[in-house]
């Protein structure tokens, strides 16, 4: 029987307003083994922790129960406090009487009764706790960044600057991400390529950074400090070491009808291509779908013209296995598919485009060489209508419930740039709300209205109807004037909602990182741990975590890097001691447990046993505690009842069940 102390927290009034803490203290005092119980306004405060430490020492406590907020919040805090007072930290249990009690119940009687029961369950469990010792594991001092947009580039640069090796895996042929597709950037209107290209060059040139472009993560195993990752380097059919980037192959390639992904399908590219002029690495890839040689065996022109002899049609995908201590997800976003939004005529008229397409149209390297023109007939538009919130803040199944955050600002940017360069073009913006919090953001929007005379109308557009004369009829409402609007436009631009890149679900599954209902990766704590995933060793950078603009992306990228550096700076990590353990006397070596273990943590050894006086050698299961993650799958699978989990043992859980059902 342990000597147990119970500490009931008021959490200010968070707990005490609904749970009669004094009564909890008085009631638990009657529980077996409880030699001390007290309450305090804030147990997690320094004074609260000191109180616990003092009681541990004075009363010689062998185990403690803290009735407080969720263990996900303060279990670590109280374990440390216990350890400082000389008690094994695993002799601490938490009864969650805030999130699971006071916050969800209104009736004091009921809540108090429940708090007592939760405390009893924790007391019953702690009686059976044992003195666990965490093991140690080494840290591989190398980081992996998945995604080479501005988020991934910045994170990699910051980690590399601290002296650690970083690999970037980027699925497209070049790093740069969406930012490389943008023309100018708010709120300063500097040219996107001018600020991004130097960073891309820095990343490529950095001695600590290694780029795997045109590559994807194939599988991930291991755990914090010790990940092992298979990377598929897709065949480029061009030798990276030989290619000089002269571009002759692209010029001579006869197959020029493939849609340019970089220009959002607005124009075409050759079968051998680099996505854009400043691509890094400046080494083309052959797209097998459109290559004549790959399809018919004839052609081979690029091989003939390449003076460096870099073309290699026999190249195969390559799988590279690397070890990493930390992994950063920076997979970014795409705009949503507009098939469901028939009312805007996006699929009907080439003159209805998304904002990202407009970025390409306005860019000098884009499909129209930077001239603002209608994609249907090449004529200069006189009347342009922008529609905001297309698919954002949408409560039906077609769109996204969240605000995409960047659209108000980039629409103001587009409107302003157009009015600046083409003062005779009229620009109208339909909006639901204009949201411009951010440094110099509201000033930016007001300039669009006040200086550049952009016509902002509060209201939604119900329909865009292509007219026989090639123009577009925009039907909407003006909510402030309370009237219907019908206007003619030459071009309509849709500020389309953004969503996480489609492949992120696969990545999250491989990393066992959680993802929310909108496919954004979840942070370990929305306020206090915004760049860490709940999975140890996995970090988040950029829009994959939530909508954000470039300044925010870069700040978050730096924050993620700091967390990675903090991890890589450690030589050893303490491992979770709550691992499985098999009882050699009960185990019959059947191998059932090995088959269910997702981490390959179970092996078999021949061991000398003394079974009631019979000495023999038996093949028994042995758990490698460095690999075991403590899921418990094996404990239930074991037909002999030999396998158990430390910290969540059968007896501990049964004791909790008994206490609750008492």
């Amino acid at each position: 029987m342990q000597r147990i102390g119970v500490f009931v927290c008021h959490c200010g009034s968070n707990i005490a307003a609904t749970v009669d803490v004094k009564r909890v203290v008085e009631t638990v005092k009657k529980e077996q083994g409880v030699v001390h119980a007290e309450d305090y306004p804030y147990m997690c405060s320094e004074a609260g922790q000191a109180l616990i430490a003092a009681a541990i020492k004075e009363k010689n406590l062998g185990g403690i129960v803290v009735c407080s907020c969720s263990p996900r919040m303060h279990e670590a805090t109280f374990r440390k406090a216990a350890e400082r007072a000389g008690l094994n930290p695993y002799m601490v249990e938490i009864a969650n009487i805030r999130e699971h009690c006071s916050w969800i119940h209104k009736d004091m009687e009921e809540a108090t009764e429940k708090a007592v029961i939760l405390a009893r369950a924790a007391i019953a469990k702690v009686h059976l706790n044992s003195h666990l010792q965490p093991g140690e594991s080494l840290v591989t001092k190398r980081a992996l960044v998945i995604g080479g947009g501005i988020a991934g580039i910045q994170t990699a640069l910051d980690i590399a600057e601290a002296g650690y090796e970083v690999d970037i895996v980027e699925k497209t042929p070049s790093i740069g991400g969406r930012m490389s597709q943008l023309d100018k950037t708010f709120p300063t209107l500097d040219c996107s390529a001018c600020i991004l290209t130097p960073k891309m060059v820095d990343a490529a040139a950095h001695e600590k950074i290694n780029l795997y472009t045109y590559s994807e993560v194939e599988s991930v195993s291991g755990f914090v400090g010790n990940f092992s990752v298979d990377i598929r380097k897709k065949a480029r059919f061009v030798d990276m070491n030989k290619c000089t980037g002269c571009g002759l192959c692209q010029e001579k390639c006869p197959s020029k009808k493939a849609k340019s992904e970089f220009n959002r399908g607005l124009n075409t590219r050759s079968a051998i291509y680099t996505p854009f002029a400043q691509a890094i690495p400046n080494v083309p890839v052959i797209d097998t779908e459109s290559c004549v040689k790959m399809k018919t065996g004839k052609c081979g022109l690029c091989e003939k013209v390449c003076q460096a002899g870099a073309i290699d049609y026999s190249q195969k995908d390559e799988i590279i296995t690397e070890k990493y201590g930390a992994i950063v997800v920076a997979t970014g976003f795409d705009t949503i598919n507009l098939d469901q939004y028939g009312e805007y005529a996006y699929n009907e008229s080439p003159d209805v485009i998304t904002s990202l397409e407009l970025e390409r149209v306005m860019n000098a390297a884009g499909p129209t060489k930077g001239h603002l023109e209608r994609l249907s007939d090449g004529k200069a538009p006189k009347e342009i209508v922008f529609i905001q919130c297309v698919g954002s803040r949408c409560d039906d199944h077609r769109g996204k419930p969240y605000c995409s955050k960047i659209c108000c600002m980039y629409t103001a940017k587009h409107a302003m740039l157009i009015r600046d360069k083409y003062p005779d073009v009229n620009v109208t913006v339909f909006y639901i709300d204009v949201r411009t919090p951010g440094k110099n953001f509201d000033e930016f929007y007001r300039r669009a209205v006040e200086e550049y005379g952009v016509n902002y109308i509060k209201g939604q557009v119900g329909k865009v109807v292509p007219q026989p004369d090639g123009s577009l009829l925009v039907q909407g409402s003006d909510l402030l004037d309370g009237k219907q609007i019908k206007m003619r436009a030459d071009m309509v631009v849709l500020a389309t909602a953004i969503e996480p890149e489609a492949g992120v679900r696969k990545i999250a599954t491989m990393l066992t990182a959680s993802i929310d209902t909108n496919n954004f990766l979840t942070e370990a704590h929305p306020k206090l741990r915004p760049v860490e995933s709940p999975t140890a060793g996995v970090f988040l950078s950029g829009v994959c975590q939530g909508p954000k603009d470039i300044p925010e992306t870069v700040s978050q990228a730096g924050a993620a890097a700091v967390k990675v550096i903090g991890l890589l700076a450690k030589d050893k990590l303490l491992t979770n001691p709550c691992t499985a353990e098999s009882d050699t006397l009960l185990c019959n070596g059947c191998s059932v447990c090995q088959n269910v273990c997702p981490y390959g943590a179970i092996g078999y050894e021949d061991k000398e046993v003394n079974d009631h006086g019979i000495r023999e050698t038996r093949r028994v299961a042995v758990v490698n505690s460095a690999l075991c993650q403590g899921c418990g799958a094996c404990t239930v699978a074991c037909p002999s009842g030999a396998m158990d989990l430390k910290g969540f043992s059968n007896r501990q859980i049964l004791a909790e069940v008994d206490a609750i059902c008492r």
Partner: protein
Amino acid sequence: MPVEKEFRPKIVAFCCNWCSYAGADLAGSSRLGYPADVKIIRVPCSCRVNPMFILRAFEKGADGVILCGCHPGDCHYSTGNYYARRRMTLLFSLLDYLGVEEGRTRVEWVSAAEGVKFSTVMNEFVDKIRSLGENVRLGDLRCKN
């Protein structure tokens, strides 16, 4: 006239640490209530829940047992919830055969972001158990007072 005492069921909810326990925490911080009859036991993963725990709960007088885990594909340990799902399907049909109706047992996937779902599921489950009434089939009579 004697007032009939309202039936308050005993309900045990096993929640995996990574998703559903966090979902329950989110229900709490979002103040999304459900009846106090539900008591949560934290386990590392849904695959840690041994059928023995559930049998014991019924034996000791529980009226309903619910097991919550991460959504399929999202288990922190990749595959734990698949094991749990298979084991529970078997166990629940066996329990049903023994007279512990299917409605008294439930498996539900709740993510860390689904505070609303957690609360809704618990409300529904408690309603269901209340409608089924007290569990008499597996209860060990020596455990009743």
